[in-house]
């Protein structure tokens, strides 16, 4: 079962997306939030915090990272570079929209899809028509 890390500028968004995505998994998937700069509600991202989340979510089948935008992506890339090279290969930074992508990724991960399949499903979330 892959792990999932949620990166957001807002600690509340990261926690909230984790809570929503966890509703999909029956507790089968480890989802770690990495929002904000420090333990304050301040808005921003922190590569060290994301790095710790990557370690916490780490497992042999890999970790999918979903980020909101801008420096969340840059900080995640910096965090991935802090890992030993061998471990970097098991981390995939997704281009998926954060909320929809996390929900779909969590559901697909919960049925044992591999890292690439989960990412493909999450990225396809951007094609979803929600006004149906």
């Amino acid at each position, binding site marked *: 079962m892959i792990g999932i890390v949620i990166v957001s500028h807002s600690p509340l968004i990261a926690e909230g997306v984790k809570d929503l995505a966890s*509703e*999909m*998994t*029956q507790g089968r998937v480890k989802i770690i939030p990495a929002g904000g700069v420090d333990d304050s509600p301040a808005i921003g991202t922190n590569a060290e915090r994301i790095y710790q989340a990557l370690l916490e979510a780490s497992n042999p089948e890999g970790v999918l990272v979903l980020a909101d935008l801008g420096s969340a992506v840059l900080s995640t890339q910096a965090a991935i570079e802090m890992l030993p090279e061998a471990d970097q290969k098991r981390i995939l930074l997704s281009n998926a929209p954060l909320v929809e992508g996390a*929900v*779909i990724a*969590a*559901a*697909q991960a*919960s*049925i*044992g899809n591999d890292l690439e399949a989960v990412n493909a*499903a999450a990225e*396809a*979330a951007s*094609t*979803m*028509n929600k006004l*149906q």
Partner: protein
Amino acid sequence: MSAATTEIEVRHAAGLHLRPAALFLQTAGAYEADIRVRNVTRDTPFKNAKSMLDVMSLAVKQGHLIELKAEGEDAAEAIEALQELINSNFGE
């Protein structure tokens, strides 16, 4: 290789979205069989029952009729389990 099909009404207030959709996916995902589902009420084509995006794209609302079909060794068991999940109103 065996095959099984059934039609069933979804009575859950949320239809086949989010939590019910995920439970549906997890039930389908527990079987080897290839499982397809379509929304009869909306007359959609069959979609992959093991894809959250596919399942949600069927836009199954309360009272809609869905059709399930499975192919594979455990097709009958898979259909039975999905039927049971839906009939139990997703355990609620």
